[in-house]
C-alpha cells in the first residue's frame, strides 16, 4: 500500500486517517460492550434467582485484594492517559516512561489476580468435584480464619442453608439434591463459574493489552509517535480504558453488593 511517512494513500490528511481509525476502534469497543454485557446479564439473572447463595459466595472473595486491584487498574488508566498526553504534546521521551508505568501496573493487577485465584483453589472454591462452600468454616486453620471472621462465615453458611431449605419447602421440592447444603453448593458453584468466567475474560483482555503495550513501548522508544502521528497510542489507550471500565463494574457486582449482610 502506498504510504507517505505515516499517511496511507487512501487518506488525505493524518487527521482524517486518525479519526477513521478511532471510529473503527470505537465500533470494536461497542462489540466488546455487548460481549461482556451478555456475561453481566447471565450474572444478573442468576443472582436474582439465588440471592442468598450468591451473597454468601460473593462474600468469600477477598475484599482488600479486590480493592487493591481496582486502585491499581484506575492508576494504570491514568498513566495510559498521560502517555497519550505526552504523545499529543510531542514530549517523546516521556511517552515510553508512562507506557512502561502502565504495563507495570497491569502486571501488578494480573499478579494480584493470580494470588486470588490460588486462594480460591486452596479454599475449595473452584467449581467441580471438590467444590465445598463449607470448607473454610469447617477447616478454619487452613483458611486462616479465626474469631469473629470465623463466626461470621459460619453464621452466613447456616443462613444460606436455611434460605435454600425454605425455598425448597415453598416450592415443595422433595429431592435432597435441591435443598439445604446441596442447593447452596450448587448455586455457589454457579456464582464461582460466573466469577471465573468474567474475571478470566477480563484478565485475558489485560494480557492482550500488555502485549499491545509492549509493542507501543518498542515503537515509542524509536521515537515513532509525536503530535502529528499518535493513532496507535490513542487507540490502544481506548482499549485499555475500556478494560478498566469493565473492572469498574465487576468490582462492585462481584465483591461488594452483599457485604452489608456479612
Amino acid at each position, binding site marked *: 500500500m502506498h504510504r*507517505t*511517512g505515516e*499517511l496511507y494513500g487512501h487518506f488525505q*490528511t*493524518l*487527521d482524517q486517517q*486518525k*479519526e477513521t481509525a*478511532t*471510529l473503527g476502534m*470505537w*465500533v470494536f*469497543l*461497542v462489540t466488546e*460492550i*455487548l460481549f461482556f*454485557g*451478555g456475561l*453481566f*446479564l447471565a450474572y*444478573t*439473572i442468576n443472582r*436474582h434467582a439465588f440471592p442468598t447463595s450468591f451473597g454468601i459466595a460473593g462474600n468469600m472473595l477477598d*475484599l482488600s485484594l479486590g*480493592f487493591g486491584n*481496582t*486502585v491499581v487498574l*484506575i*492508576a494504570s*488508566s*491514568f498513566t495510559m*492517559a*498521560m502517555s497519550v*498526553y505526552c504523545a*499529543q*504534546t510531542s514530549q517523546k521521551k516521556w511517552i515510553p516512561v508512562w507506557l512502561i508505568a502502565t504495563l507495570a501496573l497491569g502486571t501488578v493487577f494480573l499478579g494480584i489476580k493470580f494470588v486470588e485465584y490460588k486462594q480460591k483453589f486452596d479454599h475449595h472454591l473452584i467449581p467441580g468435584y471438590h467444590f465445598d462452600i463449607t470448607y473454610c468454616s469447617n477447616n478454619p486453620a487452613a483458611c486462616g480464619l479465626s474469631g469473629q471472621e470465623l463466626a461470621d462465615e459460619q453464621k452466613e453458611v447456616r443462613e444460606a442453608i436455611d434460605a435454600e431449605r425454605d425455598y425448597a419447602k415453598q*416450592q*415443595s*421440592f*422433595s*429431592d435432597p439434591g*435441591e435443598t439445604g447444603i446441596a442447593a447452596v453448593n450448587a448455586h455457589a458453584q454457579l456464582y464461582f463459574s460466573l466469577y471465573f468466567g468474567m474475571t478470566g475474560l477480563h484478565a485475558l483482555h489485560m494480557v492482550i493489552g500488555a502485549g499491545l503495550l509492549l509493542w507501543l513501548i518498542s515503537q515509542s522508544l524509536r521515537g515513532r509517535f509525536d*503530535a*502529528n*502521528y499518535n493513532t496507535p497510542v490513542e487507540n490502544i*489507550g*481506548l482499549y485499555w*480504558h475500556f478494560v*478498566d*471500565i469493565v473492572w*469498574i*463494574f465487576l*468490582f*462492585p*457486582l462481584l465483591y*461488594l*453488593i452483599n*457485604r*452489608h*449482610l456479612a
Partner: protein
Amino acid sequence: MLVANHSEHIVSWKLYLVVLTALLIGTVGTVQAAKIDLGPWNIVLALGIAVTKMTLVILFFMHGKYSPRRIKLVIVCGFFWLAIMLSLTVADYSTRHQEPSRSQLQELACTRSLNV
C-alpha cells in the same frame, strides 16, 4: 512532511489528575457504602457510583467529550444496544413461568404412571 492540522483537543494533565482523584474517591466511597445496610438501595448506589466512574473515564480519559459527533453517536449506540439486550431479556425472565424442578418432574412422572 505532511503535518496534521491539529483539530484534536488536548486534555491537560491537570484534568487527568482531577479525574484520577475522583475515580479513587469513588472507589473508596463504594467500598464504604457497601458496608452499610441500605436494603435494596445498596445495589442502586453501587451501580450509580460505577456508572459515574465509567462516565468520567469515557468523557475524559477516552476523550469522548471532545470527539466528533459520529464517534459520540457510536458510543451512545453501543449503550443503547446494551440496554435493549438487558431490558428485553430481563422482561422475558420476569414474566416467564419457572421451569419445573427435578422433584416436580418426578412427581409428574409418578402421577402419569399411576393414571396408566
